[in-house]
């Protein structure tokens, strides 16, 4: 990349690392709480700033390649950690979120993206940004939901006390489902404008539908009062389907002629 991605990434990771340490110390010394929060949010702010600069340098939204979408995840995931902390008083999630964000940036450092300003005509649409961003937010929420569910499973196996873990994974899944649904429908409305039909069972569409079904199944199982233990397992594993949809699709035999696999670079 022409802009110095590595510097931005290292600064962001350093922010998250110091922030995490400060958070740990803040358990003893409450005065450190504020700097801890500032540091961790600072990491996301650095990434947000980088995305803004990168966007203007590219002259198009950086949402085309997998590497570009990882920038957004890195900026957004820590924020969900904070949302969960402020809403449900669950403190551990943010550490995972920051680690995950650092992991995404690490992948991008190892596989630098190609700086490419071009955007094929089909992607030049007012739908491009809402469609992709809504999906990004959905994935971020569902990733956090799965993490929480995994943690719940772990606590359950160790027979530890777990107060509102289940409701956190539930609400994150619920909000994630809302975003997935919007993403799916925006995608269909856009496809009608760009390709002529709202649904063609393209592999990416099929997998998006599958992941949507997975969470639809969860919501109904929840309504039917299935045992909580099973639901947490379900939520923890449901993310695998999302992962396939997000980047696994590129490697499936069915996707060789898909119209919207991410550009490999």
């Amino acid at each position: 990349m022409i802009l110095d991605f590595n510097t931005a990434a290292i600064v962001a990771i350093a922010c998250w690392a110091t922030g995490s340490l400060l958070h740990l110390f803040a358990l003893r010394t409450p005065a450190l709480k504020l700097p801890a929060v500032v540091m961790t949010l600072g990491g996301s702010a650095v990434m947000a700033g980088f995305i803004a600069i990168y966007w203007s340098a590219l002259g198009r939204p950086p949402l085309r390649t997998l590497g570009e979408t990882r920038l957004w995840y890195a900026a957004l995931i820590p924020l969900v950690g904070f949302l969960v902390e402020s809403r449900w008083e669950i403190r551990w999630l943010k550490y995972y979120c920051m680690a995950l964000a650092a992991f995404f940036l690490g992948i991008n450092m190892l596989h630098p993206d190609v700086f490419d300003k071009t955007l094929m005509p089909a992607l030049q649409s007012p739908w491009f940004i809402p469609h992709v961003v809504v999906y990004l937010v959905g994935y971020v929420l569902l990733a956090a939901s799965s993490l929480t569910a995994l943690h719940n499973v772990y606590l359950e196996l160790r027979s530890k006390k777990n107060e509102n873990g289940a409701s956190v994974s539930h609400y994150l899944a619920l909000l994630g489902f809302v975003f997935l649904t919007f993403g799916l429908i925006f995608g269909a409305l856009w496809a009608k404008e760009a390709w002529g039909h709202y649904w063609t069972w393209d592999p990416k569409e099929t997998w998006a539908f599958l992941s949507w079904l997975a969470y639809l199944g969860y919501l109904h199982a929840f309504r039917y009062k299935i045992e909580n233990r099973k639901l947490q397992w379900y939520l923890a594993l449901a993310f695998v389907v999302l992962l396939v949809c997000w980047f696994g699709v590129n490697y499936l035999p069915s996707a060789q002629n898909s119209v919207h696999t991410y550009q490999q670079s």
Partner: protein
Amino acid sequence: MVVVRRRWFQAPWDFKESILFAAVALIAGFAIQYAASGSGITLPRLPFNAIALTLFAVMTLGAGLAFRNNPLVKWLGGIPLGLCLIFAIAVLSLVGGIVPQEAAAAGSLSAQFGLNQIFSSWPFALSVLLFLGNLGLSLSWRLIPFKVQNLQFILFHAGFWIALSCAIFGSSDLQRLIVPIEIGKANNFGYTMQSDTPQPLPFSIFLHDFSLEEYPPQLLLYDPHSDKLLMNRAQAIIEVQKGTTATWKGIEVLVLDYIPYATPGTDGVPVAADRSTGVPYAKVRITTAAAPREVWISTGGPKIKPDAADLGNLYLIMVPGTPKSFRSAVTVQDGKGNDTMANLEVNKPVSFMGWKLYQMGYDEKAGRWSKLSLVEVIHDPWLPAVYLGFFMIMAGNILFFWNGIKRSKVAS
């Protein structure tokens, strides 16, 4: 945990029976598919599909309301069966998401069971039909008596019911035709993806002009021995402009001059030309271990051969940029005196008498010199109904989001 196990088919029915039911539906679907030797389903067209769908809806709602306390009907419209059918549809979609959905060798396992066109296969149709029945029953109980607190449920479930049923029952009325048109000519025939037989259209399309705009050309370093393009230091696609620089290991390139449209000149210096005849030329200074030198390179075009810079065992080449946009200026006319002039462009379809016209493609070999435009024309009378379903789901979604946010406050 001690659970008194309910025996098979002991009331009230629950998951066990639902799993069995969904499994039988799948197996039956595949059996029919096999018996029909792999051929899919042909749906009736308007008005018969609309009548069939209305009857189905009325029967489902009627059965739900007339037998709302019947245990069998309750089970048929219940969540356990719904979940199992969702799972059945997910399994079929999984097949469709893995097995390539394209023509398979006749007689192959995939073709006999319809795995290569799972979304128009019997098992899929059967599962969707049962799913719609199940969804319709659950809906009937929430629709009547109507309560405001059921609004979210109704929007989601009725929206999905409408979108899914109309998309599927209406698929037989969907017409998608590709119309190839040459500049200065009109065409009133289109081709489907599946056949070479031209289909008459109720209108004709005249192509005034086709134009294609490209991104700037790119500089690349080509290694003929490995047939590979070498990535430069900055990991960037290098767009050619005056002043562009690029660096590879031991090689530095500076673009001294750039002419977007030019033809070869007598003394090796290209002369600017107009868009229709010229091709991009760039004068580059190449600095290697040897002395720097300056050369003109070009992408070439239909009548002009490309010029590359020979760097010993590597070549510096310039390739045309990828398409940025392309459009067709057309006049559409039906025999009844309706006509429209329009610019068709990707993502900007144009409507004409219930049809939508899309810029689809062009002669890619000829690139921006293409004299041919491919226009796709689509007629989908069921679209408004499907969109109604979409908007209901989105409305339900907004309520759901709102309630999710609200309720989460209570939980904290």
